[in-house]
């Protein structure tokens, strides 16, 4: 395996609604800031890969416009995934591992405020068995949450504790959307929006973008005193049908964590992108995390949820803690699909 590290990361603020900027205009300053942070210019980048969803933009090939933020002249080598930018990062990492690139620029972006996101998410379900019923994403998550509560896997108090923790951690973030001092009892006194989910159990919907540069050792050691080396990188997908999956665990995260070597040593920091509090609990358990790990110091997905960038941002937030020395080993997580169908685990280590 080639040594590859995260050497640059930038992100826009997570906003409920970007009123004056389109997707490209959100992305442009993020890319510019990344260039300023790293000094890396287009001619040094061997591969560009992005993650976004045409379903959020409501038009086909909408992702092409994102390239205007990067600049595609002289011609560049680029690719796109209709997934969170974390999976674009995975593609870039594979490209580097295969020897086709040494430096890659990766970005994720989305402006979900243009549509009804919970309903748009129904389009990712089985097109014959589920999509015609238009189950919105919050209802689908609530089906999973109730199953876990019925089985005693977690309690509503456990769920509320995650919201309090993450929104409290987010107070130190300058990009988070939902932050502040909340109490478990205060949250539990709130009404349900989709029983057993309360508003605080759900990640916000955020417009936003993030971008990252990863590079092999020569470049990484030049740019960073403490590069965030990618020591494990795996993603696993479970079947689509809810009835054949264990919704009270995240088996794919367990397998990905095992393959990535997460449990072979302590984890100082974890950044998780599960968009519902009960899913945070399932991911924490699948990764084997306990009080020894600082979980979601940035606030995680529950504090800011730029759809299609939130997973990449978790990897970036984990990398920042390696760069500044507050973590020797950090794990980041991204998810895709209903009820944690597909999960990605990225293990980062300092020198």
């Amino acid at each position: 395996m080639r040594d590859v590290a995260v050497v640059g990361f930038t992100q826009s603020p997570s906003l409920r609604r970007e009123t004056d900027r389109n997707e490209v205009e959100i992305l442009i300053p993020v890319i510019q800031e990344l260039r300023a942070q790293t000094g890396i210019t287009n001619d040094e980048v061997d591969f560009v890969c992005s993650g976004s969803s045409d379903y959020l933009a409501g038009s086909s090939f909408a992702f092409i416009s994102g390239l205007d933020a990067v600049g595609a002249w002289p011609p560049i080598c680029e690719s796109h995934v209709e997934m969170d930018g974390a999976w674009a990062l995975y593609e870039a990492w594979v490209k580097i591992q295969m020897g086709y690139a040494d430096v890659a620029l990766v970005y994720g972006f989305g402006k979900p405020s243009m549509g009804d996101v919970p309903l748009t998410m129904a389009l990712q379900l089985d097109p014959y068995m589920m999509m015609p019923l238009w189950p919105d994403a919050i209802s689908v998550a609530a089906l999973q949450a109730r199953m876990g509560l019925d089985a005693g896997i977690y309690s509503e108090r456990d769920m509320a504790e995650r919201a309090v923790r993450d929104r409290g951690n987010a107070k130190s973030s300058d990009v988070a959307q939902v932050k502040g001092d909340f109490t478990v009892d205060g949250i539990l006194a709130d009404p349900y929006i989709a029983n057993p989910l309360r508003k605080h159990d759900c990640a916000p919907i955020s417009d936003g973008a993030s971008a990252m540069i990863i590079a092999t050792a020569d470049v990484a050691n030049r740019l960073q005193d403490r590069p965030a080396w990618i020591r494990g990188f795996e993603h696993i997908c479970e079947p689509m049908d809810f009835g054949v999956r264990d919704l009270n665990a995240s088996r794919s995260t367990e397998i990905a964590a095992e393959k990535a070597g997460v449990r072979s040593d302590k984890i100082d920091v974890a950044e998780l992108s599960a968009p519902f509090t009960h899913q945070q609990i399932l991911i924490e358990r699948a990764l084997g995390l306990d009080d020894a790990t600082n979980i979601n110091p940035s606030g995680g997905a529950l504090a800011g949820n730029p759809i299609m960038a939130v997973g990449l941002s978790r990897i970036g937030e984990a990398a920042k803690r390696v760069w500044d020395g507050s973590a020797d080993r950090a794990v980041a997580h991204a998810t895709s699909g209903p009820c944690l169908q597909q999960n990605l685990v990225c293990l980062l280590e300092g020198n």
Partner: protein
Amino acid sequence: MSEPSLTAPHQLSYTYKRSLGPVFSKFFTALRDRKVLGMKRRDGTVLMPPKEYDPDTGESLDEMVELADAGVVTSWVWVPKPRRQQPLTQPFAYALVQLDGADTAFLHAVDAGSEDKMSTGMRVKMRWADETIGAITDFVFVPAE
């Protein structure tokens, strides 16, 4: 320039029909005839929805078996304000329902009237549309008792 400009009708739609494949074709044809078919796995358990391949082993499957039109709710959520696209105009529940004869639950809607009529473990049965067309929207569930 007295000739009128040329016009042509334009309907935004797919210009082709899509095959549902060997399993869903049988499933939805049976649904039109108000029957529900599941897929028996090699170990004897029955998948609903039916699948062409076993999701765990990848084995090819082809033994479809008829299931009951009633079953048990394994999880549910109340939808107090249905969106325009959703299957019922009045408040309803989405639920995971395991049909009698099946070993897996699938997602559908329950027209229960009010949230307090819903509970995990309750029995539900299918209420068919007046006209069935071979779609998952050909029925909704209602409380069985």
